């Protein structure tokens, strides 16, 4: 493993300066649960690791009814899943975050790291997409914000430019009659990578019958986490009937373009897309009705 130096940064400004002065040699270290393994296996290189876990803005978790949820990029999965606002307002996010590794990983791994690692199978990303999350990116010219579905560009690659890093993930405040859910299929009970994952969210009208908006996103069926906008658009204005849910699931299935690998064949993954999308939608509606 090639790491020549390590620094624990004390402020956002310090990180910006270190990234600029090291010109592409430096990498951000959060929990290290992906990065240290990749460095050890020479899949990534770094001359300098910048530990951002000691910067308050990067580990803070804040919520208010106006601006919604702020998740510092280095906040651990454990901290997020034990935050009372997250537990109360965002059960659909908790579904996904809880799936990331065992307890030992949960204490270290961050949601920001899960996003930056840009795995097509990352569990948290479809859940963030259906919550309309945004990425706050910091660079030498200040911050910019992009929708989370634009963050990953290829397996292991994200939109961050030289000198930029992920500061936080922002999730809008939850609307009335909103519900979301994420689930995945793995061949055992725990500790595995998704064969397929599916996230869904719905906002219902006052009578909780008609769909005002819906979002569906899939994991492990494309080079990046896949936002299936068409499936959500199809549901707008419709009743939540079994027929409509099945049609949305069929659209998601048709949009997916999975590969065959050791976790599953293309055909099997296609099949799972429909099953999981249907289940994710049903649970999202159940939560919206109970809200």
């Amino acid at each position, binding site marked *: *493993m090639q790491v*020549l130096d390590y620094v624990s940064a004390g402020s956002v400004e310090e990180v910006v300066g270190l990234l600029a002065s090291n010109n592409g040699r430096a990498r951000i270290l959060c929990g*290290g649960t992906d990065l*240290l393994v990749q460095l050890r296996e020479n899949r990534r290189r770094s001359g300098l690791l910048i530990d951002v876990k000691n910067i308050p803005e990067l580990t803070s978790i804040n919520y208010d009814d106006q601006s919604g949820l702020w998740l510092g990029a280095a906040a651990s999965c454990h901290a997020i899943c034990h935050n009372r606002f997250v537990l109360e307002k965002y059960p659909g996010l908790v579904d996904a975050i809880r799936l990331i*590794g*065992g307890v*030992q990983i949960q204490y*270290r791994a961050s949601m920001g790291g899960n996003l930056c690692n840009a795995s097509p199978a990352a569990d948290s990303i479809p859940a963030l997409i259906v919550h309309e999350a945004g990425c706050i990116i910091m660079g030498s010219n200040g911050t910019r914000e992009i929708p989370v579905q634009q963050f990953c560009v290829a397996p292991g690659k994200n939109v961050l430019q030289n000198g930029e890093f992920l500061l936080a993930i922002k999730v809008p405040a939850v609307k009335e009659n909103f519900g979301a859910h994420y689930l995945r299929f793995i061949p055992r009970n*725990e*500790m595995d990578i998704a064969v397929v994952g599916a996230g869904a969210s719905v906002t219902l009208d006052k009578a909780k019958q008609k769909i005002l908006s819906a979002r569906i996103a899939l994991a492990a069926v494309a080079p990046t986490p896949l936002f299936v906008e068409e499936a959500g658009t199809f549901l707008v204005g419709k009743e939540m009937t079994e027929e409509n849910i099945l049609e949305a699931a069929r659209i998601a299935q048709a949009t997916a373009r999975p590969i065959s690998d050791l976790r599953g064949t293309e055909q099997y993954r296609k099949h799972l897309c429909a099953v999981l999308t249907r289940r994710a939608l049903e649970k999202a509606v159940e939560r919206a009705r109970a809200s």
Partner: protein
Amino acid sequence: MNKKVRVQATINGEEVEFLCEPRQSLLEVLRETLGLTGAKEGCNNGNCGACNVILNGALVNSCLVLAVEINGRNVTTIEGIATPQGLHPLQEKFIAHAALQCGFCTPGFILASKALLDQNPSPSENEVRQWLAGNLCRCTGYDRIVRAVLDAAQVQEKPL
């Protein structure tokens, strides 16, 4: 010669100071520099839990923590579990239930179980199984381990 960094930390209640390279994991430094060989190197990539230690109250895989990251922090390893008065209840119950065969995973399981009981003194069987999902044992089939942890929880709840 790579640059070395000075690190000060508290390990098993004792102040320690050591030099390490930034690339070295906590596991490597515990075993190679500090002579604490209780934490085991199984997979060295965060899958097996054999290297578990408690870092400032949090259960972690020491193979996925850089030694430089523990500067100013508090680490408990398997060597810090027993007291001069005797073994920890978890250690006693692992022996009583024969919850080990080769023993390689045991330090990790004890640390993981301690971290659980520290925050949840009377877990259900399901909670124990969920919590220990990040620790692999290739000998016992887990059942004896789960029973040992549940039994230790009962002993801890009713101190002598």
